[in-house]
């Protein structure tokens, strides 16, 4: 997935540490994402995936180490500069885990219009773009609905629309399929897949191993704020030791014929 020699990576983290309430959430972590890659960050609760998403998105700032976007350092100071802030926010979209946090407007239309409005687009263009996005996401009928009257799946789609309306080049997703029923899950995955072709980059934090192969070409396994492993979904999913270590597997408690009676850790990926 290298993109020619000179092109800087979309995101690069070098030795990033971040403390949250006195506990090290990221501990000297380094990683790199090239343009057009689809990368998954997998790890158990508290492994630092969400924090990493926030640090990459310039919503939290590393205490030591460096984060860069297309070769340019992402710091608090740089983000105060409008000539960096506005393009960065437009090009990098973030989907949060809890849609109730992300949906802070009183109607679906206003929610989707929030980003373009903040970035100072012309009002008429905003109306047109929002309408188009609502149509494309299949939520035009929810236009005037209040967020508290949306179902979980609808909330997720609106949150996604509110990010995609800016047509970002990089998408940071924090548990996009958590707490959704299987039907809605696959629908969200399908929406993301249809959006992500071309030069777009998607970084997904998840502990849902079922959808891993659909959403990523490459995975980082996180454990206690560090990278514990890296590889294609296929390699990672078969590395039972790594997955168990990272707290992503539970011992299977079913029998295999008559000879294996004791529960033992093993994976079921790719057996079908």
């Amino acid at each position, binding site marked *: 997935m290298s993109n020619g020699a000179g092109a800087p990576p979309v995101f690069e983290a070098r030795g990033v540490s971040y403390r949250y309430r006195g506990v090290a959430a990221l501990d000297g972590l380094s990683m790199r994402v090239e343009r057009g890659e689809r990368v998954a960050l997998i790890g158990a609760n508290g492994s630092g995936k969400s924090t990493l998403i926030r640090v990459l998105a310039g919503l939290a700032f590393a205490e030591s180490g460096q984060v860069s976007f297309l070769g340019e350092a992402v710091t608090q100071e740089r983000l105060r500069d409008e000539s960096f*802030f506005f393009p960065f*926010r437009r090009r990098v979209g*973030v989907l949060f885990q809890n849609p109730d946090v992300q949906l*802070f*407007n009183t*109607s679906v239309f206003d929610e989707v219009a929030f980003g373009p409005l903040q970035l100072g687009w012309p*009002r008429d263009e905003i109306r047109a773009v929002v309408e188009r996005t609502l149509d494309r996401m299949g939520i035009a009928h929810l236009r005037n609905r*209040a967020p508290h009257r949306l179902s979980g799946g609808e909330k997720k789609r609106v949150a996604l629309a*509110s990010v995609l309306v800016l047509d970002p080049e990089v998408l940071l997703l924090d548990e996009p399929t958590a707490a959704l029923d299987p039907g809605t899950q696959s629908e969200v995955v399908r929406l993301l897949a249809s959006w992500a072709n071309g030069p777009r980059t998607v970084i997904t934090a998840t502990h849902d191993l079922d959808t891993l192969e659909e959403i990523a070409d490459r995975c980082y396994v996180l454990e206690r704020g560090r990278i514990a492993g890296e590889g294609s979904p296929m390699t990672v999913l078969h590395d039972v030791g790594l997955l168990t270590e990272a707290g992503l597997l539970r011992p299977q408690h079913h029998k295999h014929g008559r000879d294996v009676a004791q529960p033992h850790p093993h994976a079921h990926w790719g057996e079908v």
Partner: protein
Amino acid sequence: MHIPDGYLSPSTCASLYAGAAPFWYVALRRVKRELDSRTIPLLSMFSAFCFVVMLFNLPLPGGTTGHAVGMGVASIVLGPWVSILAISIALLIQALLFGDGGITAFGANCFNMAVVGSLVAFAVYRIGAAGADVTSRRRAAAAGAAGYLGINAAAFCAAIEFGVQPLLFRTASGAPLYAPYPLSVSIPAMMIGHLTFAGVAELILSAGMVAYLQRADPALLRRTAPGAKCTIVPEASSDLPRRGASLRGLWLALGVLAIGSPLGILAVGGGWGEAKRVSLWRAPLADYAPAFIPNPFVGYFVSAMVGAGVVVALAWLVSRAAFGERRRRAGGQSASFMEATVRGLLDIVERSIFAEDMAGSMGFLQRLDPRVKLAGLATLIACAVAIRRVWMLGALFSIATAMAAFSKISLRQMARRVWLPVAGFTGSIALPAVFLVRGQILFRTPLPGMHATVEGATSAVFLILRAATAATAAYELVMTTPWNRLLRALRWFRAPVVLVVVIETAYRYISVLLQAAQNMFESRRARLVGRLEGPEQRRLAAATVGVLLDKSLQFSVEMHTAMQARGFRGEAMVLEETRLRANDWALLSAFLAAAVLVLWAGL
């Protein structure tokens, strides 16, 4: 405590709007400066928090329950300025969307509860807790006193506002046009209820929440007490704070206050009476001092207490009769405050959903642009408050009712939701006026000094018709407009964008906090075996408010992050609604022309 439309004259309302305005202005400036880009998420979240706290049904000693306003809680944690804004916004959402408190009286309600209440509560807390440890008992006690005195100060302001009405605003024949009772009745009537019930609710909430925060999150208390020492925080043995005997002293003090307050009133009355020139106090009741009591002060005191007692007792009886069904508890005492609170929370959610569905059906009012509707119906309410002819008020009431009929609002529903509560509440306040207001005697009763008068009856009719017309119009407004568009319409009236955005965001997060509160209560109830004793219940309620506050803060931080991720830099922006069409303007002009006509004929 929420003053409805029709109790205060337009000039009183205007001066109280003017009285509150500088405080809003200063508060908004200070808050913007202190919070920079966090203003909107924090202020919205706190307003939503205050709104939800006002819904809590707090268990009081003696098995009753009461609502608190939250000025103690808000000003202790947020400081007086944020508290003024947050409570005002919560009151605005209550007035606009839930018909709790009038639209013309909104300025008065904000002045009393948000401004005076917050400032008094904060001053009491600062003085009472000066030099105290963050986790000391004195701090919790000071918080209780702050809540208690804050709400009582607000009630006292309201009592004075009521009490000056009959002196300043009367018909040619002398019938009071607005709240009919003089200070000698309005002060005891308001203060008895607040010194005992509402004050205690506020006390429990403030002291209990501070006690909870002292254990769970002392850092929150340091916001307004930066210099206070914080000794080692003991590990919480349970999630409920133990206060034990520490409240005994407060209860005692409370008893003394409750008994002492009428004596204080007597002293005030005496002092003013002596001056002879000040007729404010004695005005309409002076003649009712029974002849057999020779001392004029004592006689005067007795008459005032009788008047206040009649008002309070009737208000209680009528509301009992009107709402007995709803208040009756399923399993006696054991159906606790939790049930009552959860029911209250659910009711709010149901109403918002019902309103949204109603707004979708096609009727006369549903077709109007929200801005035209807001302007038109607010004008109607203002007219109902301003005019001074009974027949004209009757006509306005009929017009409001006809509009409901044309807008597919069933009159049965209107009766259940609006007219019956108005009849119960305002009716019970207006009824004693028939007998207490001096004037031409209509018929006599066997009680000494209690005769129905023409002026008394007139004033009762005024009060009820005004309140009913205003409540009908307000109900039509919220039932025929999607609430998000109603809030956005405020922008058209030149409300600052930042305020509109804060109000909208607060409204959005009320539903999230309601959900959180409901979950907390229900999970608690699921684990509950047997029933809680009174003090346990009170601790539980206060702790729930503390947890909710923590959640609100956490939400505001996360919301701020989510806003930043989409390019938010602290500046409020809204997509303006499209311009009004020609026929909207025509309708608006028609509304205003009708209002001018009504005022011309009715003043």
